[in-house]
């Protein structure tokens, strides 16, 4: 180690301690049978699964239902929004029509407005929808999904258009010369080629929905319909000291799969991140 680089090592290690501190405490407390934070020390003394068991045997805390709701709504939103967004992006990228430029600019402007800024309006609207269609109104996962879909449409269409522009046009043209219609080009040429990009966009969309809190907490009042974000927040907020152990266990169960997926796909995800920077 060169002395010149000493500051670099010190800096990196300070950040590593900073990064790992909360993660370590959560892992430690999730296996700590005393359950409360008060007794948790930095060196683990006991080890047990009691917090994990408590999470699945408490009827007041339907953790399984929360996970199911979160996964359900996040995957539905990811799949549907990427599917529909890809069609829009394809039209914007490959077709020339009246209003295309204006449409793209409007899309860009709309997608910078986070949809939860209109939350009071969304609340009142969905309250009225509820009186006619309870299944897609306030309080339902279906209604929340519709709001998410609307919100992710602009972002996904925009993101995907950027990727689709990089797929060479020659392939489309070759298929067209062979007599394929636009719809065939879309399904048989474009869709398979874009599949990896669609998957990454879907994954980002999944993580985004999984993280969403404000609309979900406004929408889902019924304890069984909550997502993990809303459920855990209400659970831990009620009795911090007492519920900390099971909360730590619950947060690990929900987090570990996502972190593994993220780390294994980091090349693709991070590639997309910096693209905006280097192109700009």
């Amino acid at each position, binding site marked *: 180690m060169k002395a010149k680089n000493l500051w670099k090592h010190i800096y990196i290690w300070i950040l590593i301690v900073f990064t790992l501190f909360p993660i370590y*405490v959560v892992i430690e407390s999730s296996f700590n049978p005393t359950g409360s934070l008060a007794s948790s020390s930095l060196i683990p003394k006991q080890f047990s699964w009691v917090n994990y068991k408590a999470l699945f045997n408490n009827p007041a805390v339907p953790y399984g239902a929360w996970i199911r709701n979160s996964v359900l709504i996040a995957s539905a939103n990811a799949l549907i929004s990427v599917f529909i967004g890809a069609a829009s992006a394809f039209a914007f990228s490959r077709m020339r029509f009246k209003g295309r430029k204006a449409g793209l600019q409007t899309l860009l402007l709309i997608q910078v*407005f986070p949809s939860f800024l209109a*939350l009071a309006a969304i609340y009142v609207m969905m309250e009225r929808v509820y009186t006619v269609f309870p299944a897609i109104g306030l309080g339902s996962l279906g209604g929340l999904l519709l709001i998410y879909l609307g919100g992710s449409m602009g972002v996904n269409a925009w993101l995907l258009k950027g990727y689709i522009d990089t797929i060479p046009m020659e392939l489309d043209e070759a298929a067209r010369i062979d007599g394929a219609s636009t719809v065939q080009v879309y399904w048989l040429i474009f869709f398979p080629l874009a599949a990896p990009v669609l998957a990454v966009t879907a994954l980002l969309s999944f993580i985004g929905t999984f993280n969403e809190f404000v609309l979900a907490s406004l929408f889902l009042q019924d304890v069984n319909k909550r997502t993990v974000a809303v459920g855990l927040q209400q659970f831990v907020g009620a009795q911090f000291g007492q519920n900390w152990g099971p909360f730590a266990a619950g947060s690990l169960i929900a987090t570990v799969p996502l*972190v593994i997926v993220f780390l294994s796909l980091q090349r693709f995800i991070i590639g997309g991140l910096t693209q905006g920077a280097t192109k700009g």
Partner: protein
Amino acid sequence: MNRLAGFTGLPAQIFKICFIAIVDAILIAMFFASTHKHATSLAIVIALVALGANFVYFAKFTLPFKFLFPGLVLLVVFVVVPILYTISMSAFNYKTGNEISKGQAITQLLQTGLAPDSANTTYDMVLGKKDGDWAALLTEQVSHQVYLGTLKGTTKLEKGSYTLNSLAIAGATAGFTPLTADQTAASDSAIGALKFPLGNGQFIAPQSADVAVLLTQSLVYDSKTDTLTNTALNRTYKDNGDGNFANVKDKTEKLLPGWRAFNNFRNYTHLFSDPTVRGPFIGVFVWTVSFAFLTVIMMFGVGFLLAIALDKKIAFRRFYRSILILPYAIPSFMSILIWNGLFNRQFGAINGLFHTHIDWFNSPWLAKGIILLVNLWLGFPYFYLISTGALQAIPAELEEAASIDGASPRKILRLIKLPLMLQILSPLLISSFAFNFNNFNLIYLLTAGGPTDVLHGKTAGATDILITYTYKTAFGSSEQNLGLACAISMIMFFIVGSLSLWSLRRSKVLDGF
């Protein structure tokens, strides 16, 4: 082309027609369900979507719109309409006490403007039908006088013209059919609205399925002058233009409930002129801007320095990197809740570690510091990643040329790399500013906007940013002011929108199509 053959011709056509038929069937069913419940605006939206779908998918010249339509519908119905609705709500006096329409408010006022007579006259009641319409046999509990009430009027019945039932009250008379128990149970809500007029503004109204009381209408509505008059107190109330009926002689005496009334965008002027609204709003606004600014600078500073420190020459680079991007991989709501727990006064690991008893979230300055620290934890990996990307995008020749000219590495960093990086990253810095400007999760899950000085009547907490303040204004526990919340939302739309637009103009994205 064999592989493509299956997608064309008759099968594809049949599939398309079946699919659209199913969509149409669902939309038509939804349309009739809405008209049935008198949800006109909902019905119009559904009808437009159905008509649009059929037009786009059956007309010949709309190819691009066949691809755009589903996304367009979702975007318009669930993003554009709420934005437009936010604009319209922001022009209304729409808050707790002013939530219903004027017609509903008048109905409720008239219902509450009822008073029992001084003797509290009560009747035992048998409900039934006469000539196909609602009627009731009413036996006064004190005098045992029997009346036959119909919707047109109430008549006294002489002894002998009715027969008593097992409870010793009038149970049957000519032309009157009593309800069965099942019928009574089924028409619960209809019974509650029944009134059997007596004349002189008095009437008998059911209180339950078998008891009725004598009521006097003390509040009278005159639709010609749009006024309400309290006949007992001899007071007149007039529409005050702000969603309430107010006493003509004393404007502060308002009748409740009011209604949501168009108030000429007064919510916006309140934000700047009404001291009870302006005070908290300006405080929150200043903190929002300074928080977003400070946090982006901190995250960028730490992330950029890490990108320099973690260059290619460092051993274990990949290992360090995997650890240091962990905060970016963990769902942020989870990390925020965890940090909240760590700073808990009684049970938190931080007080435990240092053997202190600091009430972190109860001091405005400590709470603000924690917010910046936690957001730094959450955000520095992102800035490290984009800084690394940007550093790699700077041509190596620049560095070489500068070092040949005798510049020290530090000088190269300060005079060449940093300015170039700022230029490359400025769109991302601006969008990060916009994101943190609206970072609801961070504030709400960490401090919930607190600490709030409730003792001094403060409505906004020390760490509230505009979006959490809007949320409190719209859905708070004491008063919910949706109109004001929408006005604040619009101001945020404006700030974030113009910032993004400015950034897009600079990066020339808008010209590139």
